[in-house]
């Protein structure tokens, strides 16, 4: 978090408040917190309808809207399928067709049964689980940006592990915040620059399973339609006035065919996006802009 034009003492207080706010969001959305409401859903919602806390209910409803708007490309229920691929490809094997078929019975947003009047949720398959990993950072940043604005901060850059960035106002020495998408293989080089003003940027990336070590497995993205991992080394970055839109679209566009992407984006406003694909040339991976929109 970089705050501009804020006294040191006040900035420190804002940083403390920001951390508190982010931790609260994490508790609401993390599936890794065994005491958290997402874990409770994942444990119990297959047996009974569960009423999540108010904020989580709103988040899940938002996710439902995004699932519809992205024609199913954004889906928070893919974990069983992603894990199946991870477990197999870590060992160098592909899951069998039968195992894939089985896993696909436990994914799909349509298998989440929302009861809007009772504000409850039920899993229609017993091995489902919800993972807000592709949503939470955008949501948290959007909320944090709102809090900072409310406190009078006009210029700031908020980076959530570099994959999600939100800026307030502009860079102190220019008309916008120039944010470069780092070359995955040469982090000091920029593969594309976005000029952000009161906007958010989110990037999703993927790599061939067989080229990843254990730490790489976190980056894998599986296409909900084909049930297979996205191939190649690629990153898709989306800039948008909304942090959540940017976060959701960076994953959704990555799994959407190029020919269908413009139609998907037209459901959103003021979005620009770029897909960078890394091609092997003379033993090095060279970034190329494979697709872009609104730039």
């Amino acid at each position, binding site marked *: 978090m*970089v705050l*501009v034009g804020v006294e040191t003492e006040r900035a420190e207080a804002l940083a403390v408040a920001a951390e508190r706010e982010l931790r609260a969001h994490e508790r609401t959305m993390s599936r890794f917190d065994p005491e958290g409401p997402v874990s409770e859903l994942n444990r119990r919602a297959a047996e009974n309808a569960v009423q999540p806390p108010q904020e989580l209910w709103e988040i899940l409803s938002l996710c439902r809207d995004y699932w519809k708007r992205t024609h199913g490309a954004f889906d928070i229920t893919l974990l069983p399928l992603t894990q199946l691929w991870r477990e197999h490809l870590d060992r160098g094997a592909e899951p069998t067709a039968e195992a894939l078929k089985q896993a696909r019975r436990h994914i799909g947003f349509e298998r989440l049964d929302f009861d809007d009047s009772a504000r409850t949720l039920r899993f229609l398959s017993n091995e489902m689980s919800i993972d807000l990993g592709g949503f939470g950072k955008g949501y948290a940043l959007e909320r944090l940006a709102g809090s900072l604005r409310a406190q009078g901060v006009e210029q700031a*850059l908020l*980076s959530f*592990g*570099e*994959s999600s*960035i939100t800026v307030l106002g502009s*860079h*102190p*020495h*220019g008309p916008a915040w*120039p*944010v*470069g*998408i*780092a*070359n*995955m*293989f*040469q*982090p*000091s*080089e*920029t*593969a594309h*620059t*976005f000029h952000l003003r009161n906007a958010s*940027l989110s*990037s*999703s*990336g*993927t*790599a061939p399973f067989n*080229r*990843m*070590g254990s730490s*790489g497995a*976190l*980056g*894998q993205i599986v296409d909900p339609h084909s049930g297979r991992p996205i191939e190649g*080394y690629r*990153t898709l*970055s989306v800039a948008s006035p909304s942090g959540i839109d940017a976060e959701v679209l960076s994953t959704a566009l990555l799994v959407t065919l190029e020919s269908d992407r413009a139609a998907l984006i037209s459901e959103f406003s003021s979005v620009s996006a770029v897909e960078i694909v890394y091609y*092997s*040339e*003379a*033993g*090095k*991976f060279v970034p190329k802009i494979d697709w872009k929109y609104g730039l």
Partner: protein
Amino acid sequence: MDSDSSLSSSLDDSGRADRREFLKRVAVLAGSSTLLAQLPWWSPLRAAPVGESPSDRVRLGIVGVGTRGNLHIAHLLRTPGVEIAALCDDYEPHLDAGLAKVKGAKGFADYRRMLDMPGLDGVLIATPLYLHARMCLDAFSAGKHVFCEKSLAYTIEECQAIADAHRGSKQVFQIGHQRMFSPAFLRALELVHNGEIGQITQIRAYWHRNGNWRSPVPDPSLEHRLNWRLYRAYSCGLMTELASHHMQVANWFLGAHPVSCVGYGSINYWKDGRELYDNVNLVYRYANGTHVIYDSLISNVFYGSEIQIMGPKGTIEAETGRLFAENPAPAPGIVQLINGIEHGFFDTVPIGGPSWVPDLKKDTKGTLLAKEKTTDDGTAISLAAYANAIRLGEPIPGMMEQACGTGVCVLMGQAAMEQQKQIAWPEGFRV
């Protein structure tokens, strides 16, 4: 043809059953690559592809049909223009198993009888170390071409005798250091030549396994014959059987042999009656001040086997085929951004990207050297080189230098550990 990609793709034989086609591609590459032109032992591979006529056929005999001998059989059966005419082993079960694989080959218990066999062009010696010298020398005397498994010989004097016997001869001699023909190591060498790591300032190599390094013995009386790698009368253990591979690469990449070495070895875990060390630690010194640090043990396999070639600009791990760039890690984006703001710069900062990245700032994963997976560790190509050289009737240039440089080097290491003192390169040794 000299670009990185052609080197790795032409030498990629994975998934392609036809060795003849593969060797045709190798020949084209060997004739056009400036890198390979600098490696004299590649010259036989430039020969025109072998035809089908009987006169093109090279007839070979293999002495020693153990693990390595069997691997040679498997490769030679696929190598065009080669006939395995004879197999020799004084251990009958091995000989019988070998003969069952090679139709029409003649079996021998005594290699000298095999050398008398009419029409035999050359031999492959895959016997315990202590037999290498006498077999090489007898084969040379019998007018045969020789492929000898590494390491060259049991003593430095024997290395010298082999070099002396071969000097000026038209006979082909080859040593079984297959990394000289390994696509992965060629890529590594190419990077060194291109200055990717700068001057080589240190090489660190290791070979770690976890196991007793024994073969099952049907009868205690066969212990020494089958587990010869554990006994000093037959071998120098980890040095000659494993270290020789990496010391060959070190000498090759440094273009020199060491001037001296020191080291310690002991048996600290497998105290089962063996005589040879189960762990060794050595430092070799080269004339230009470069050191090669080598260690090997058979009680821990965590780090496996690797040779790390280091320079001011990077590190190459050649066994796994990766380059790790040394260039200082860029300031993390945020720090760079703040510096810019404080100094009035309006610059793009590469700060965005997916949460997953292949190379983090520490470059912990490195860059893969070859984009295609190659199944051959160099053995297939090296055997083709041997057969071609016999067909051409020309010795393989540079081969004896590599064999002797390495053969002497590992024996120096064994001596340093046994005598617990610094051992110098033998003055007057001549290839």
